[in-house]
């Protein structure tokens, strides 16, 4: 499985935006630098402070699910331009080209140590994984599928919030996705949220905060309002660890903080404890 992961990493690195600028990765939390190769070996975790860096959806899939088990839903869905925002279609076409993604989320089913789950993985390279029509529709369909087929859902969230370029239509995706989560929950379905860097804005204020179990990766950013917005409008100085996973756990909004290398096993164990046969994995 890890071999697979590295192949994907190497391939993806050629297309990544912010990280190709130098031969080393600079940690946004502790500012220390680490050679890229070493950073890859560490599954993109900062060796100095344990910040869990951003992964592409493909990397996440190969790291988390049983090899070859992922089956994608709605792989051709692309967004229209609901408010006719200048250059939005062009920007999307360009991003589809450079990232190989159709929008900011990939959904489907996958096995975690043999257990089937409906999964969604957001990818921050695509417009900061903002939620517009496509993200909203794919998540809603994923939950509806899970409800119908009595499957658990695992969502790896990462988002800058609502997709501004889709105006009010993007805001309504919060209602649409949360409604589908609620019906899945009322039907007895298990929903595990894995918050990854960064989970903010309208995604935090909808499906990301509605998990039965909320997991976060270490040192990642979780919040509703952005740090800069708070600092500038409220003229408040904020503590260093403000809105980091550990801070949010202390405030009562995260069940557990799980390191990337233990994520697959943790998810498998949690899924197993929610299946009727109570088999051990």
């Amino acid at each position: 499985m890890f071999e697979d992961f590295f192949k994907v990493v190497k391939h993806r690195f050629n297309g990544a935006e912010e990280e190709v600028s130098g031969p080393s990765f600079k940690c946004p939390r502790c500012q220390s630098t680490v050679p890229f190769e070493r950073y890859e070996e560490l599954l993109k975790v900062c060796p100095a402070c344990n910040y869990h860096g951003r992964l592409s959806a493909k990397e996440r899939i190969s790291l988390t699910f049983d090899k070859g088990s992922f089956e994608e839903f709605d792989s051709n869905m692309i967004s229209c331009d609901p408010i006719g925002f200048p250059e939005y279609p062009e920007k999307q076409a360009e991003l589809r080209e450079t990232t190989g993604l159709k929008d900011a989320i990939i959904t489907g089913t996958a096995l975690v140590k043999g257990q089937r789950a409906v999964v969604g993985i957001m990818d921050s390279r695509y417009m900061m994984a903002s939620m517009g029509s496509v993200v909203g529709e794919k998540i809603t369909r994923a939950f509806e599928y899970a409800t119908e087929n009595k499957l658990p859902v695992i969502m790896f969230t990462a988002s800058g919030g609502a997709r501004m370029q889709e105006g009010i239509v993007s805001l309504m995706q919060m209602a649409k996705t949360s409604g589908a989560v609620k019906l899945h929950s009322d039907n007895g379905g298990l929903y595990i949220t894995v918050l990854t860097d960064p989970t903010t804005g309208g995604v935090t204020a909808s499906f990301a905060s509605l998990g039965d179990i909320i997991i976060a990766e270490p040192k990642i950013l979780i919040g509703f309002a952005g740090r800069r917005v708070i600092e500038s409008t409220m003229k408040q100085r904020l503590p260093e660890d403000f809105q980091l996973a550990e801070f949010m756990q202390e405030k009562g909004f995260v069940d557990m903080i799980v390191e990337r290398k233990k994520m697959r096993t943790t998810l498998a164990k949690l899924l197993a404890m929610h299946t009727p046969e109570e088999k051990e994995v």
Partner: protein
Amino acid sequence: MENNKTAWERLALVHTKGRPTIRDYIPLIFTDFYEMHGDRYYGDDHAVICGIARLDGKPVTIIAQVKGRDLNENKDCNFAMPLPEGYRKALRLAKQAEKFHRPVICFIDTPGAYAGMAAEERGQGEAIAKNIAEFMTLRTPIISIVLGEGGSGGALALGVCDELAMLENAQYSVVSPRGFASILWKDASREEEACNIMQVTADDMVRLGVAETVIEEPLGGAHNDLDKISENIKEYLSLKIEEKCQKDIDELLKARYTKFRKIGEFTE
């Protein structure tokens, strides 16, 4: 209706000093209003007022964001930017309404949820998410009206409903025009341009499937004739509450889910 105003001109009307707030409307639309305070967990947020009252003699629950009419009131209600405890109070009252089979009427009037350290520490995101999810399956009719500004998730937390109405000059948006300009163009001074392209007016909401009804304001805006605008709001509410109360609750919930389910524009 006045059809020749730009979105920016309407926003100016909404910001006019003297624009009625929910405090002005309650005595003209309802009787026997009793305010209920607090979320039972942390405190009482003055940006959201909740209570029970009678509409046409029948009990209803009111959940409303409240703007101040002067600086002192605005300081007290935090310029209508709710804290998490405001949303949790709203949810408490909504659940109470469900228990006693009272319809819920939400009045939206906020530039957005409060953005500050206290709000983050107490889970602004969680509070909004919870309201959205719970309102979706609340087993009693919900009608929401945008009175002035409906800004971002802070508005949507009172906006999951069976039907949404907009006052003629009211706006509903994913973020304030100023925020939009600063996020997308890194230039907050382009807020007028942002406001005019964001599609935030009452007519835009009806066209995009977000709202069902536009409530006519008196010529020049709601502040020009409080009695008339109150009468228009009351007429709308009486009609809709009666209509929704007669519906089978499971049918109502299915329609509520579908209303939001179908919003989104994509191709495959």
